[in-house]
C-alpha cells in the first residue's frame, strides 16, 4: 500500500462514473476512468480503466491498462495490461501482452498475450512495485483488495487504484525470479523411455 500513496496525484484527470449512473453508448477519452456504476456499449481509452467492485461494464473495451474488480462482460484489448483482482469477474476475451489473474477472480474466455516467447524481465514495460514472492500468488491479492475501500470517499476523486497504475508505469525492473532450487540430480539411464521416479520424503 505504501507504493500507492506516493503517486496519488494524477492532475485533474479523474473521470468517475458513480454507482447509480448508467451510460449506454460510446465512450472515448484520454484519461483514467473509474467505473462504479454501469457502462454499456463501447469504451476506448488511451489510459487506464478501473472497474471497481460495484462497477459493471458490458462493452467492448480498448484501453492501455484495465484493472477489473467488478464485472466485465465483453472483450478487452489492452496495449499494456489487464488485471483481474480478487473480486473481478469477467466473461469475454482478453488481448493484452500482460494478463494477471489473481486468486479469487473468475474468468471465462480466451486469453491472447501475443508473443509466444516470454520477454526478458528487463523488457517488461511496467513491473509492479508491489513486492511479492515469486512462487505463490496469495499475497498479491492483498493490495488489490485493500485499495477498494480507500477509494470510496467522494471528496478525493483520485482513488488509489489509479495511483497504483501510475506507479506501475514507472520503468522499474523487477528482480528476476529466483532460480529454481538445486534439485537432486537423478541418474537416469540414457534410454528415452526410461522413467525415473524418486521418492523425496
Amino acid at each position, binding site marked *: 500500500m505504501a507504493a500507492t500513496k506516493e503517486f496519488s496525484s494524477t492532475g485533474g484527470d479523474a*473521470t468517475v462514473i*458513480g454507482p*447509480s449512473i448508467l451510460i449506454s453508448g460510446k*465512450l472515448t*477519452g484520454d484519461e483514467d476512468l473509474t467505473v462504479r*456504476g454501469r457502462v454499456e456499449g463501447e469504451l476506448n481509452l488511451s489510459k487506464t480503466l478501473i472497474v471497481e467492485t460495484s462497477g459493471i461494464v458490458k462493452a467492448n473495451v480498448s484501453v492501455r491498462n484495465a484493472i477489473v474488480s467488478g464485472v466485465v462482460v465483453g472483450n478487452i484489448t489492452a496495449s499494456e495490461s489487464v488485471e483481474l483482482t480478487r473480486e473481478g469477474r469477467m466473461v469475454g476475451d482478453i488481448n493484452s501482452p500482460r494478463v494477471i489473474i489473481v486468486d479469487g477472480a473468475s474468468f471465462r474466455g480466451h486469453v491472447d498475450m501475443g508473443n509466444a516467447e516470454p520477454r526478458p524481465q528487463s523488457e517488461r514495460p511496467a513491473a509492479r512495485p508491489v513486492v511479492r514472492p515469486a512462487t505463490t500468488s496469495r499475497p498479491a491479492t492483498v493490495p488489490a483488495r485493500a485499495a477498494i475501500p480507500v477509494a470510496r470517499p467522494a471528496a478525493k*476523486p483520485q482513488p488509489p487504484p489509479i495511483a497504483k497504475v501510475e506507479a506501475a508505469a514507472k520503468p522499474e525492473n523487477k528482480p528476476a525470479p529466483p532460480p529454481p532450487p538445486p534439485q537432486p540430480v537423478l541418474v537416469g539411464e540414457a534410454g528415452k523411455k526410461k522413467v525415473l521416479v524418486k521418492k523425496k520424503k
Partner: protein
Amino acid sequence: MANTIIGSSIVIDGEISGDEDLVIQGTVKGKISLKESLFVEASGVVEADIEVQNVDIAGRVTGNIAATDKVELKADCRVVGDVRAPRILIADGASFKGNVDMDVKER
C-alpha cells in the same frame, strides 16, 4: 464534490442516466436524464436533450433542457435549445438562444 465526473478528454456518445450528481467537463452527445443535479463546467460540451432536477451550465449546451427544479445559465455559457423549468436564472454574460417555459405542469 459529486460522485460522477466526466473528465475533459472524455467523449460520450449515447445515453447517461442515474440518480446522483453529474459533472461534465468533457463532451456528451445523446441524452442525459438524472434525478439529481447536472453541472456543465466551462470546458464541458453537451449536445443532448437533458432531463434533470437542477442544472448549472457554464459550458456549451445544444439541446432541450427540462428541469424539475432550476436551470442556471452562468456567465460565459452558450446554450442553444428550449429551456423548461419552474425556476430559470440567466446570468449577465450568458449567451442563450431558444424558448423559455416556466409554466411547468408538474409540481
